[in-house]
């Protein structure tokens, strides 16, 4: 909330492509043996935009982010970063290309102080080798500045990060990813385990990251959360794209319907109407679901 003047000084070490396209999946898919977890998925992530990936459990969301974050490799289609086809073999490689993933549970080491967590794995040091030591003052100062820049104010950076609330921990992880030069931020269900207020806080930081020019992939199964910050929505169902639409092309109701299995519900409407006590007026007609169904037209805003 303080000091918004110096936006984005550390990020953006490599300029994005002309149209801000950072990451693109073209008809990408992934098979585990004879199980096709993901098939023919198109996805684009632009700088300064939030791409929401929605889907029920088992829809293929995890597989999708594992491909982008470098944990798994795609078995069909193409995966491009800055317009160049890539195939990551480890999360480190993805990280080096500026793609950082904030996992729901894997974000922090609970017993370690906030500032140590912030710099874990990329500690600042000073002095020549035999006496090379942590630059604690600089790390604390930087961590505090970066957290404040994201609007997170903590009394005591020495407190174990486990004493923070779940939302705050997510936010520290997001701030950390932003500071370490992430251009694409993948958030794996950051609001899933959080209360209403805390979810709001996390959504605010997603917006803050977007305003700092990052491309954000926001994975969630909550269409309300997605619609608050999303610029583009991709709904996955059984490993394929069910919907790919920009904010202008889809309303929250339509999004919710797609998420709640709207298309299937519509198909069932006729049957349900026969059952006494079921109010089918609220259910969508099939022709109501007019949002463009995947594959979406190219060049969404």
């Amino acid at each position, binding site marked *: 909330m303080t000091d918004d003047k110096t936006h984005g000084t550390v990020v953006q070490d490599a300029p994005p492509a002309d149209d801000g396209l950072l990451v693109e999946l073209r008809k990408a898919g992934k098979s585990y043996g004879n199980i096709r977890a993901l098939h023919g998925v198109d996805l684009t992530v632009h700088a300064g935009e939030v791409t929401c990936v929605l889907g029920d459990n088992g829809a293929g969301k995890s597989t999708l982010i594992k491909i982008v974050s470098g944990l798994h490799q795609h078995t069909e289609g193409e995966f491009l970063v800055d317009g160049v086809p890539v195939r990551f073999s480890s999360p480190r490689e993805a*990280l080096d290309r500026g793609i950082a993933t904030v996992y729901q549970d894997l974000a922090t080491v609970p017993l370690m102080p906030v500032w140590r967590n912030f710099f874990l794995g990329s500690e600042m040091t000073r002095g020549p080798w035999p006496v090379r030591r942590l630059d604690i003052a600089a790390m604390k100062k930087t961590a505090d500045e970066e957290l404040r820049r994201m609007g997170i104010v903590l009394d005591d950076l020495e407190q174990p990060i486990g004493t923070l609330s779940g939302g705050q921990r997510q936010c520290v992880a997001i701030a950390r990813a932003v500071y370490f030069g992430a251009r694409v931020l993948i958030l794996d269900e950051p609001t899933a385990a959080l209360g209403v207020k805390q979810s709001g806080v996390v959504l605010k930081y997603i917006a803050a990251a977007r305003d700092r020019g990052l491309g954000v992939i926001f994975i969630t199964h909550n269409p309300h959360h997605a619609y608050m910050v999303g610029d583009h929505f991709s709904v996955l169902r059984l490993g394929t794209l069910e919907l790919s639409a920009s904010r202008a092309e889809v309303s929250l109701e339509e999004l919710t319907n797609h998420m709640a299995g709207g298309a299937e519900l519509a198909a069932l409407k006729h049957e349900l109407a026969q059952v006494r006590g079921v109010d089918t007026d609220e259910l969508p007609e099939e022709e109501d679901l007019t949002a463009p169904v995947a594959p979406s037209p190219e060049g969404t805003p």
Partner: protein
Amino acid sequence: MSMAQQAGPALGRPPAAGPEQTDGRTARRPLALRLLARPEVGVFLGAAAVLVFFLVVAPSVRQGSSMATILYQSSTIGIMALPVALLMIGGEFDLSAGVAVITSALTASMLSYQLTMNVWTGVIVALVVSLAIGFFNGWMVVRTGLPSFLITLGTFLILQGVNLAVTKLVTGNVATDDISDMDGFDQARKVFASSFDVGGVQVKITVVWWLVFAALATWVLLRTRYGNWIFAVGGNKESARAVGVPVTFTKISLFMLVGFGAWFIGMHNLFSFNTVQSGEGVGQELIYIAAAVIGGCLLTGGAGSAIGPVFGAFMFGMVNQGIVYAGWNPDWFKAFLGVMLLGAVLINLWVQRTATRR
């Protein structure tokens, strides 16, 4: 952000309005409580209490020479308790640490004697062997993902058997031959097992090594990247790996550090007693682990200090010798230790729960 949580109970002060903007949720806890929350402070108080207790009941403890003996006893446990503590903070155990000491001493002794070489050759080879045992433990734990308790239990049994069998095979005896007349012995003894005079009291050099290693370990743990990694791999291995901490390197090197400690104490044993009994060392590993736990290291990893185990080892040495000086039956030693261990753990638990309550 204050929005992130409901206001905490009983705010100690209004939100600060100064240049240091805070979220106004946390009241600063009193200094005494904050200090008590540090496990090493708790064990320091415990060690002080044990010291005062024996100073009162056993007048002979008050002599300088008695204190030197107590410190010596503590240092031989303490030097091993340090790497064992670091390993514990890193989330692993080493049950083979006790017999590995003997393995190292046996290696140096038998190699030098049988090949009639300068003892330093044996010392160097023993170091390599000790580090290799540590590497094997670490590598197996990392590669298999099995609990280190199991892996090192295996190593413990293997080394115990090998110690005895190889010694009998080579020397035809359960102990190694006296190497005190061999080249380099005096020199090596100076490094590992000499004494020096402080105001008329003979102090063993291991006490100095112990304190030097403790200072070094503290610095590494709190002030270097490697120390940061130790806490991280013990606290949450997966998170650590996800943010780029070299988990495999950290774990294996910690096991090798225990190997280094075993080598050092093994050399001390060899050069103070000239021969090595091949069946010794069994049970020592638990003493090291107990000293680390009394010293406030979390059994499950992720928390602890290097200075805590120093006090933990001191408590051991104090009780061990104190019982003798007090003229009690030394048979009670282990029982006393057990009570002390339980007491320390319970006090640690209670102190942490009280002092960290927010």
